[in-house]
């Protein structure tokens, strides 16, 4: 086997901050190379240098059979056979599948412009068929679910006949089944077409399952590298963080406490049917289930973001107004949304303002005057509690890494000292270290008496923090399992068991 891509001693700094230092790696022909590292470890910078979007200060990137390069030239990288699928996919949501796939095809051929539409449709259909997908080329992309959009992005990349596809966190927004399908596709393309892949992911089990070889980045340098067979999850996370991350378990479940949350016969039309459960003070309850099981809908209806059609949600014995989020907030419920970029953060505002966003009312005089210094003090207190790492709280929150951003979102809510904290996928796209710290925070809150509900796709996460897991399927509560000695395998079986029937 020979290397299709060789990265040789690449370094890159941004205004004195060293993002990459002497990074070398090689991707073999017909192999999957996984690049892992915490947020801010330099993965994205390296990706961009390989894609020719960013220049290297020193060192070179070379595709087999081409001159080594170090400058900015995305077109050249594409011609050399590198296709990059960015995390946000870079599709045009308002155009059809065919129109998204075809521009590349068009640049590669000399089809007359007036026959473009029909030839685009044919090219797109052929590209999708090659991937074994039945998406209609005339569908508008924004109507497709994330997993199918990803296929469109891959199909688009494939029309360029690349030698290597670089995928930046392709599985972050996918469910288990979709991930399995994506991984199978990658394997097929690798084995049948001898294509090479560079795969960036936070999900370490995925990395081990898929990779032929691994490079671990930490603070811009290669922390370790080698064949995937040499790695375990523990070794990966230790190499990434430079510290030993133990797989923690929740603290002991509280006993004899008053119920904080009582849910009785809760129904949401078309999503959740007749769900009843109680959660005590200091209890952490996980909600598990596949996409479409009603997991997200249950979490949303608990805090009034989704209107329940029947049943009641009571906090400390008083019923909430269904479908009234602001009422739920006033009653001490906090909801940390899944998509932190669009629902959790004010990207251009300072870190401090972000953490203060939900508590302005607590620092306002009767005349409406805002006590800024008190507000800032509160915000900074919670940012400190969550160890948000930054030189200056005045910096815009978008300068932070994903893990730190998620800590800011949590600070915002913890500043309200909620009685019931509802989390939806709290560590999606967050690095191992931050994930560990966020879990630690949740355990800590529970110990101090906060009730926590956590809806997550991430089974190890549920086992790490929840005392009980409610397993949903087809909108119904199928199991209510104590996590005590539960294994990921057993939980996965409980979650996926019923889905075959439905």
């Amino acid at each position: 086997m020979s290397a299709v891509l060789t990265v040789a001693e690449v370094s890159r700094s941004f205004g004195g901050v060293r993002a990459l230092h002497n990074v070398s790696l090689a991707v073999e022909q017909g192999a999957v190379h996984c690049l892992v590292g915490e947020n801010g470890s330099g993965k994205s910078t390296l990706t961009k240098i390989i894609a020719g979007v960013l220049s290297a200060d020193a060192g070179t990137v070379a595709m087999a059979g081409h001159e080594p390069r170090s400058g900015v030239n995305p077109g050249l990288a594409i011609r050399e056979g590198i296709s990059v699928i960015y995390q946000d996919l870079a599709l045009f949501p308002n155009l059809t599948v065919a129109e998204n796939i075809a521009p590349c095809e068009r640049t590669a051929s000399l089809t007359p412009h007036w026959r473009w539409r029909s030839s685009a449709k044919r090219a797109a259909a052929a590209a999708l068929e090659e991937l074994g997908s039945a998406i209609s080329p005339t569908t508008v992309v924004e109507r497709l679910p994330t997993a199918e959009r990803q296929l469109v992005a891959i199909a688009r990349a494939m029309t360029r006949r690349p030698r290597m596809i670089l995928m930046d966190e392709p599985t972050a927004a996918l469910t288990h089944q979709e991930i399995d399908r994506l991984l199978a596709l990658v394997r097929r393309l690798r084995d049948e077409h001898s294509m090479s892949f560079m795969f960036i992911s936070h999900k370490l089990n995925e990395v081990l399952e898929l990779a032929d070889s691994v490079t671990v980045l930490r603070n811009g340098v290669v922390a370790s590298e080698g064949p995937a067979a040499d790695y375990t999850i523990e070794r990966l996370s230790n190499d990434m963080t430079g510290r030993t991350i133990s797989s923690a378990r929740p603290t002991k479940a509280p006993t004899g406490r008053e119920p904080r949350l009582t849910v009785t016969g809760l129904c949401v039309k078309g999503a959740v049917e007749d769900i009843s459960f109680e959660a005590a003070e200091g209890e952490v309850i996980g909600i598990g289930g596949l996409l479409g099981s009603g997991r997200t809908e249950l979490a949303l209806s608990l805090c009034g973001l989704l209107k329940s059609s029947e049943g009641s949600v009571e906090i400390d014995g008083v019923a909430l107004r269904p479908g009234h989020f602001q009422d739920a907030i006033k009653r001490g419920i906090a909801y940390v949304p899944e998509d932190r970029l669009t629902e959790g953060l004010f990207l251009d505002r300072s870190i401090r303002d972000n953490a203060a966003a939900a508590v302005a009312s607590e620092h306002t005089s009767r005349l409406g005057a805002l006590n800024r210094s008190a507000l800032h003090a509160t915000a900074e207190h919670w940012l400190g509690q969550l160890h948000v790492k930054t030189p200056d709280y005045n910096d815009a929150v978008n300068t932070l890494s994903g893990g730190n951003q998620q800590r800011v979102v949590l600070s915002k809510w913890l500043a309200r000292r909620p009685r019931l904290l509802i989390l939806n996928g709290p560590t999606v796209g967050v690095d191992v270290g931050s994930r560990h710290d966020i879990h630690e925070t949740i355990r800590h809150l529970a110990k101090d008496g906060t009730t926590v509900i956590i809806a997550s796709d991430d089974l190890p996460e549920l086992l790490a923090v929840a005392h009980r897991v409610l397993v949903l399927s087809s909108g119904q509560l199928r199991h209510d399992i104590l996590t005590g000695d539960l294994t990921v395998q057993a939980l996965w079986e409980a979650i996926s068991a019923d889905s075959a029937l439905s």
Partner: protein
Amino acid sequence: MIRNALRDRVDSHVILLVGLLIFEIGVFSILEPATYPTRANFTSMTLQASEIGLLALGIVLTMIVSGIDLSIVATANVAGIIAATTMTAMDGPSSSATATAIIVGVVIALAWGAAAGALNGTLVVGARVSPILVTLGTLTLFTGIGTAATEGKVVFGIDAFTWLGDGKIAGLAVPFLLLVALAVLLSLRLARTRFGFEAYLVGENARAAWFSGISVRRRQFAMYVASGMLSAVAGLVVLGRTNAAQVDFGQSFVLLAVLVAVLGGLDPYGGRGSPLGALLAVAVLQAMSTGLNQVLVAHTGSNFFKNFAWGILLIVVLAISQRSRTPRNNRKHELRDKTPEPDSHNTDTSR
């Protein structure tokens, strides 16, 4: 401290505007020493700037919550018509009757402004129609109301009210003082209250604001009502200055007011800028406009180049200020392009 101030884009923008203003006044004072740096000229400039400034404040407020109000001039004209009609009808020989007429006229005009703003607010917030479309629609609607009421004719006011237009306090024009006072008050309200803090967050990301428990709709609605009332004040000032109101007065002021707002550091995407920035922008434009007028009339006998030069100024200032915020806007576009996940999580911002 200076580094912090410079790093903050708004402050650097203010420095840019202040620098430009001083530069303009210096250049024109040298070119036209006899007419430009005179008290009379400055009074006349402040007077002219006031109407645009008041209208621009409305744009500023709505832009902070990432909206816009294009109906400002129509609202102002109708307010002027209402006030003129009311005052003329109620005016009497006694000074007390005149005072009552003025008070009632002003109150009704302001109430009209609030109602017009409430209509805009309701349509934008409640019916969730794009602010540009809503206020273009109400612009036409309000113009129609004004035309129907006056048949397009000029309505005259009462003499006693002209104090608001050409009165002076301590040598300064009353409309200008009104503009400065309102700009300062609004800036304080935005900077020092919970309302202001949350309004900027709403402009930055309405969805995240809503998820943070902020009453997004109330913040947005309030801005439209305020914009309507500011427009009414502008209408009253025009009535005071010309002692007349007319439905097609100052049509070009709408775009000018938008430009003033953007020149003043407002971001059409929301969440940035302050009324004081717009005040500075008005001053910069007026100083330039008057100066060019004097220079061109003195040397070429026409002011043909005025709009030309004005356009260049706008482009230059915008280019300079946009440079420092390019990354931010790119990021916003990225976010906007990201389509929401097609599941029930996609709860509407303002429901």
